[in-house]
């Protein structure tokens, strides 16, 4: 019986192997070569690509930008997502309507929404035009062309896009918390904050873990919004690690080097995720 059940996993395993394991293994192998992505010939260069990464200032900047976006977006979508989920949990009849509204940006094409935001944030775009219309023209700013504003704009767009997804994750978690626990807390004189702190949070730790890990992973891989809105600019100010990987691979014909950066990013994400899992395990209640 056990042997037969294993057979059911074979199709999934094969698909996963062809689409994931082989390319991953390929990337690991490529990271030790100087392949340009075009020619038939390439040389094995050992750890040279990894050593070169240490002195790559452009990559260092991309890591810093990625971490900045990840920190801002991950914290905001998780805190706001949980807050809105708490509110929606009480909204009763309108829960589904609001849930759909908040979730909508997540299901739209990222490239399409990026172009919409481009029309909003451009200097002569919707936002500045509205400010001018309401007599606040002095507040008009360059949201894309100024380095500081550009990274803020990327964060705002990403928060807007991802918030609904994380809100739904939290809402699903909250709805699994048994009502009796809240009733017991009220009977013992617990206030709203105490209900949240001592019942909701401990009971939704698995949900928090998934949401935080997902948000970190998504932001560490940020590419499409940056590509459309700023193209990594002005200069390198919004260039993320994934943008850097694509540029090295297809702009500079350095597929070996870009694979090394991708492996490095993989290790960072894996390490952060494992750390987060360990931490969550300690906080989880059975």
């Amino acid at each position: 019986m056990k042997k037969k059940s294993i057979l059911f996993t074979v199709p999934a395993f094969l698909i996963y192997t062809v689409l994931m394991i082989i390319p991953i293994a390929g990337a690991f192998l490529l990271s030790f070569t100087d392949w340009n992505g075009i020619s038939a010939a390439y040389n094995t260069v050992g750890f040279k690509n990894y050593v070169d990464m240490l002195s790559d200032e452009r990559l260092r900047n991309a890591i810093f930008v990625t971490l900045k976006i990840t920190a801002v977006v991950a914290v905001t979508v998780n805190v706001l997502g949980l807050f809105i989920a708490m509110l929606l949990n009480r909204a009763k009849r309108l829960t589904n309507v609001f849930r759909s509204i908040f979730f909508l940006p997540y299901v739209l094409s990222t490239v399409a929404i990026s172009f919409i935001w481009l029309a909003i944030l451009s200097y002569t775009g919707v936002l500045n035009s509205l400010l001018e219309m309401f007599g606040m023209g002095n507040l008009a700013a360059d949201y894309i062309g100024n380095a500081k504003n550009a990274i803020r704009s990327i964060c705002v767009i990403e928060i807007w896009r991802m918030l609904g997804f994380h809100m739904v994750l939290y809402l699903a978690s909250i709805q699994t918390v048994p009502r009796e626990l809240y009733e017991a807390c009220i009977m013992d004189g617990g206030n709203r904050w105490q209900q949240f702190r001592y019942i909701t949070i401990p009971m939704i730790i698995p949900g928090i873990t998934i949401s935080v890990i997902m948000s970190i992973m998504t932001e560490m891989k940020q590419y499409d919004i940056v590509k459309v809105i700023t193209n990594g600019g002005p200069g390198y100010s919004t260039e993320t690690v994934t943008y850097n990987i694509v540029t090295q691979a297809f702009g500079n014909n350095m597929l070996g080097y870009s694979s090394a950066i991708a492996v490095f990013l993989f290790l960072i994400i894996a390490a952060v995720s494992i750390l987060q899992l360990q931490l969550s395990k300690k906080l989880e209640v059975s």
Partner: protein
Amino acid sequence: MKKKLVSMLLCMAMAATMITGCGDKKAGDDAADTADQSVQSTQTETAKPQETAAKEESSGDDITLTWAVFETDNYTAEVWQHIIDAFESDNPGIKIEKVLMTGDSRPQFLKTMLSAGNMPDINIDPVDLASTEGVYAEVPEELLAKYEDSSVVSFDGKKTLVPAYKAYRTQVYYNKAQFADAGITETPKTWDEFTAVCDKLQAKGYTPLMGVGASDLWATAFGYWTGVVNSELYSAYPNFNRDILDGKLSWTDKVLSDTLKSWQSLTKYYHKGSMSFSNTQATSEFMSGSAAMFMDGAWSAPTIDNSTEYSADDFGTFMMPTPSGAKTYCTMPQYWGVAETCKNKEAAFKFCEYVLGGNPDIYKYYLQADGTFSVTKTPVTYDMGPVQTEFIKNLEGYELVPEAMKLVGDDAFPTGFEDYTLKSLQNIFTGADVDKELSTWDAEMQRLGAQK
């Protein structure tokens, strides 16, 4: 414990999605396949071209060729379709299928297609990949004989590009009404006159210069680089590219540094939203009067001449003065390439020949669309609008020099270097220290050059 292990494995799997894109299974096998194919197809083509053609014709099936094109305000879908329709009607049995090169970087698009094994048969803008062995097929000598000798280029002795046209680069387009209102009666001839014009316009409440930024990375420095920097560099060093490549000159050179500092001194005259405009937006903003001047490419001349919204008589153009008084201009040669992986190279070259001079009406139509000029030994000309006519007239008395970043062939800078400099120039435009930025260029060029 088991649960923990499963969670960790799932986590690793999710993180692993990060690198799946880079693990191209073609690394070894397909690259070798491509090489094999290229050898085979070259042999087929050079040894038995007539036989191949006979096979193509006798098969009775239509040949379908894919053609990578891009769309702009001038090169619209209608332009490409007109060319395709004309060719197909004159060459029954050959079908052309358009592949639209999306995104801001056409070389990157083509490289992605090549890596994925979907390289279009005929490419516009193939220069970036042309130096890589085995990407493009060698062009038949009898076809190359139809073009000006100066337009034919080779890479390590191999001629893989079909000359398409030459495009004049930058001049300053200006709004005549705003100039007149600011009391400017003559276009500036010197750098000091130019800055005086900017001051006058600003004093009158006009924004002197329109700029470009946003995701159009190429366009931020385009006007100033091709109009001023290139002029200064080639006036000071007639063999600039070769000198740089041989290490006789450095990118930290004083001429370049000073010219870029002069650019920084102009930033106060630029439109505040410049860095958030795409090139199309900037052109539209300029034409609607948001700024009095716009340093832009020759393609803007037909855009203005053909505008149905604005009158071409409201705009003029002049050569951008340089700080040292250097009087040179440059042109960008453009090419087409036939992919080595193309199964019907003969038909592909037939299409190249047809559009690029074989049918003078179609060549004229192609050139006229973007205001470019013929490179065939028998020149093909067309009637120009008032702005384009003025553009060409302004070139009188100026010396033609190569465009450093667009030089094709053995004196070209390494792949990826231009993109690197464009990012750096955006930094400079937004206030970065010029010398600090330039200090990284030599090392980057060497790093990229080491990649064969």
